[in-house]
């Protein structure tokens, strides 16, 4: 009889208290993982803001208004962007980065469009998609015109889903 009781205690089903403790341990381990993930992502974010601040609000001079005529597209390699003068003499500053997978675009003067060397996406002068695989228009930068001098805020690239006139600037 005594032996039987002993056997019962040794059965594989653990006492409830121990199961509970094990679960608490697992929960603590899980929490530690979540914390580690949160910690690393917050450190990464801190670094990102440091880099962003270093660049600050940075303006690049893109030349005088008079030097552009309607339809001109000028590459500004030091800021990795293009300044386009649209048909109605409004200016738009376009990121040089293809919205498909980030390759560097070039302006095809003969065909009047931006062409991506990687996957063949094309964009018109205002950065709107002509042929996919790209789905989104090119990112743009705010442009300011002060006394006929065109200045581009290169620290502030903006995503957009479609083109409208508010993205452009005129004299």
């Amino acid at each position, binding site marked *: 009889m005594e032996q039987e009781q002993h056997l019962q205690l040794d059965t594989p089903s653990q006492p409830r208290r121990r199961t509970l403790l094990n679960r608490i341990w697992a929960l603590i381990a899980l929490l530690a993982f979540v914390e580690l993930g949160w910690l*690393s*992502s917050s450190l*990464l*974010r801190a*670094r*990102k803001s440091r*880099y*962003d601040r270093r660049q600050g609000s940075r303006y690049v001079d893109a030349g005088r208004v008079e030097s552009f005529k309607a339809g001109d597209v000028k590459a500004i*390699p030091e800021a*990795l962007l293009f300044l386009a003068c649209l048909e109605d003499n409004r200016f738009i500053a376009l990121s*040089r*980065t293809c919205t*498909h*997978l*980030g*390759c*560097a675009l070039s302006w095809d003067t003969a065909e009047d469009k931006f062409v991506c*060397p*990687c*996957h*063949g996406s094309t964009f018109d002068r205002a950065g709107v998609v002509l042929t*996919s*695989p790209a*789905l989104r228009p090119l990112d743009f930068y705010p442009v300011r015109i002060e006394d006929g001098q065109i200045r581009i805020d290169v620290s502030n*690239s903006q995503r957009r889903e479609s083109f409208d006139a508010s993205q452009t600037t005129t004299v």
Partner: protein
Amino acid sequence: MTIKIRPHHSPIRGFIFHLHPRKVVAETIRFTLSFGLGGMAATLFLVLVLTGVLQLLSYSSDSTEAYQSIIDMYAAPSLAGFIRNVHHWAGNLLVLVSVLHLLRVYLTGAADRTRRLNWLIGCTLLVLVLGANFTGYLLPWDQLAFWAVTIFTNMVGYVPLAGVQISELLRGSAEVGPATLENFFAIHVGLIPPFIVVLLVYHFWLIRKSGGLVRSRDSGQRPVMVAAVPTLVAREAAVGFGLCALLLLFSALVDAPLTDIANPGASPNPAKAAWYFMGLQELLLHLHPTFAIFIVPLLMFLLLASLPFIRQAGLEPGLWCGGGRGRWTAAISFLTGMGGAAILVVVDELAFKNSGAPPVLTPWLSRGMVPLLILVIALGLVYRLLRSKNFPPSQSLMAVVLLCAGMVCGLTVIGIWFRGPGMMLGFSF
């Protein structure tokens, strides 16, 4: 006080018996059961740790110096270039060996209920290996690295909801730049390796706990046992040292690739992701980005991870592909998957993508839901067909899994070797 040294308990032997039991089942040590793939992966990991630590002495992770530090590695009296070669080739080989190891475990029926946890750990390890490879890819800071990482971080940006945030977090800024290099260096040398070590130890321990490698069902007789030392250990040493010898020889003859220094102003044409992500990049040329980058890979990974949890999915243990006609089923499914992917790519390229006809449906439907549904229905029909031909459920599911694996393989091959400038179809050897 005297210390007794027992001759049979040398430290090395003691360590070996932490990994292995004294006696192992004779049939589990035959080479054609495992091809030593798990052991090869472990060997490669050790080589990677050693060469990685050595490279810390010659590499600089500052974006202004990184490229030059690689060039300097190949300067005359230094062995650093050779060590970089070993590290590069071992890392690439590890991706291949890990994938083969995963297929081996599934096809020999080892992914059963008793090894569920170890299967999940193995899947996690595969993700970590890919992460380690991908973060290491950027470190040379050459054109190849720069644009491959640009393309991949942009691919991550298509993940719904958090994609853009995750990819900016990885890059450390809006575009790939000095911050990206610092991030990737820290992740590559500091974050991923410890996780791999911990999971590897757990992985090994769970194998021993499940009674070693998978073996065929009990035939009533007691299995033949052999001593782990020397029989098993000698075989492991042969595979490990043989692999190391081939790796060192190859690295002495073939340099790891290094192109021009990274130039954010000009992408090479074509710009490709790392080879193990070329299947994804190929898919991206055909499907809506959300599907190509997120939904399809996620579904495939979930199917893979859930294999030991599906009832009746376990293949006959200890045999390849369930035995009998299973091997033929496996080979035909895999080749059909590869060929099917190639045909689909060519048909899409010729008939639909460049036809110029306006799309009938929104891209989300025509290049997302519709192809996905067709694929799922086709795979379901394959399963039904095999079941009606009296194939057991496990082999029918194996055919579906290997069809998917074949398609992934086919897309990867097309992406690597059949995409030329402008990502046009053609030879690019």
